[in-house]
């Protein structure tokens, strides 16, 4: 059965993550993403049923709240977000795959778009973002692990990938 573009997208992300990027240390991320992938590929329809989606969302919340690092969390959020917007609805996050080409890219905050809300800084797993409220924030590229959490959290589209 051919998968919907969203499902296929989520599967691609998961396949890449489980085969190449996951370190395998914590249970929630290692086993959670493996089962997300399993549910999607076992699903008989182009996109997951309501129950399947509920289970994936539950795994997403589990990983988001209990995984050790930002990488696993960002993957889980991305998958859930993509799937929850099946059927052509506007996708809330930009396309981002942390992976082997990380050294070629960097994240940047557009000072004109940034409202200085601090949400990116609060969600950064390595505290690489700093700034003063209501003024543009700045990413410290020395500390940044390029997990994409800031970009997914920004409500104003101020953060983008540069290369």
């Amino acid at each position, binding site marked *: 059965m051919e998968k919907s573009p969203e499902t296929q997208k989520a599967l691609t992300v998961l396949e890449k993550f*489980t*085969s*190449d*990027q*996951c*370190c*395998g*240390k*914590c*249970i*929630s991320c*290692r*086993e*959670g993403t*493996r*089962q997300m992938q*399993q*549910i999607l590929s*076992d699903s008989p329809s182009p996109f997951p049923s309501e129950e399947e989606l509920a*289970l994936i969302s*539950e*795994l997403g*919340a*589990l990983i988001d*709240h*209990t*995984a*050790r690092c930002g990488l696993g969390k960002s993957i889980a959020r991305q998958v859930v977000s993509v799937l929850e917007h099946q059927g052509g609805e506007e996708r809330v996050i930009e396309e981002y795959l942390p992976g082997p080409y990380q050294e070629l890219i960097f994240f940047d905050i557009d000072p004109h778009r940034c409202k200085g809300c601090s949400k990116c800084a609060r969600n950064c797993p390595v505290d690489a973002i700093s700034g003063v409220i209501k003024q543009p924030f700045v990413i410290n590229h020395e500390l940044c692990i390029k997990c994409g959490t800031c970009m997914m959290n920004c409500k104003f589209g101020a953060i983008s990938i540069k290369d």
Partner: protein
Amino acid sequence: MGSMIIAGIRVEFTDENNVLTVIRNAGIDLPTLCYVSELSVYGACRLCTVKDEEGRYFASCTVKPRDGMNIQTNTPELRKYRRTLLELLLASHDRDCTVCNKNGDCHLQNLAERMGVRNIRFKSVQERHEVDTSSNCIVRTPSKCILCGDCVRMCDNIQAVDALDFAGKGVATLVTPAYNRRLADTDCVGCGQCRVVCPTGAISIKSTVDEVWNALADPKNKVVAQVAPAVRTAIGDRFGFPAGKNVMNRLVTVMHRLGFEEVYDTAFGADLTVTEESRELQQRLASGERLPLFTSCCPAWVRFCEKKHPDFIPNLSTCRSPMQMFGAVLRAWDRQKPDEQGRRLVSVAIMPCTAKKDEILRPESCTHGRQDVDFVLTTEELIGMIQSYGLTLNGADKDAADMPFGITSGAGLIFGASGGVTEAVLRNFIAGHNRQEIDALKRVGVREENGIREFTFHHEGRDIRAAVVSGLRNADMVLNAIREGGKSYDFVEFMACPGGCIMGGGQPISSTGSPFRARRDSLYETDINMQIKKTSENPLLDTLYATLLKGREHELLHRNMSGE
């Protein structure tokens, strides 16, 4: 120092290492699979995740307590997460629980029960891996491994052996020896401490129970057994006795019923060891050669020394271990007075130790091409035998160990606790039966609890500098200090397992706190009730040295460590 609110109750804390400890001290036993307080923190199982006042989730084992924290431990969400985590683990786990060696005793199984996991919503994705039976001591079953890393950290943090580590990543992660070697081809010393911390059946004792049952059933055999001091203070755990209770007398009765014709006390072997080792120490002190003298009772320690510090092999005592001395004497006794019915002597040793299973197979543990001791059963295996026969220790009559090796000294008995060998040897340095001096010996530092303890003993105008070391990481540090000249001793006792044989790799594992103190105190308590305190006062030894052992001390009681 400070206070925090845990599940609505204010709790004071002082120097706890992490929030998890504070929570547990407050009476909430948060589940964990990868947290062992003696080991470094790993944070893999995520079961101890809690929520703070700002709605942040974190694993409580990895966060230091801060004043003013407000922690929730049991929100509906957290409960759901814990259950889902267990479901996820079980989905990738070999769930043949009914035939697992850990059935009924498995930490994962217990937690699944405690958290109310009744249904696994995920597809079973378990992978089959080959079982590694290459070691003489332990068996690794990787398909039951949950990757908590407890064994890896035990082998490194506490034992400094580093035989196991993680390999691969993601879902392909495995705990395995380097280069996927078999355990037998690594530096593994067989101490079994990995098995002690393993929450599942992934690491288990290599059992010889079936072989012993077969030997017992064969009328051509006369099966006798020796029981190590540490066994009697631990085996009662599984039969409802209070921790540390010495149940030797009941055990003798039950073992007779299992079919062991004679049940001897390894403490007698320990008496022989103390006698020989005291002599050896006196000789080496007089000649000044090959000092410090290292004890050689612990086979895991001997292997460790051979594999990691071969330059110290000459320092090892040439004495066999108590089990091997006893085994050799039994065999020689049997050769001198063969069984009237022409039966073959099968010698079994009941030990707290997995490494002993390897020791009996060493070339120097054989005489005339036959093993001195045929089988080693760990305490856990004997418990299994007793239970499968349908017996129990509770109602059993009491009986004394069999003669002619039934008379033992208190010195031989305290071998089971770390420091016991040293104390026993030093007792022989005391002239006569001087109660005050024997009592004073308890207070020189030999009975402290730390893993490395040093003290000085005055004897005939000179100071004997002794050290008692348990845990191989500690041994590693002491050996390096001696080599670099930072430390200088005359006598060092080494035990591989932290706390000594009572905490051996083949002992029952307690689910309620460490049984160390209870077991140790029980041995010292038994020693108090022994009339014979010093091995040199054991009348049986005099008889034996005058008869069977006459002129054969070296052949039966010593070994060639240097391979001459």
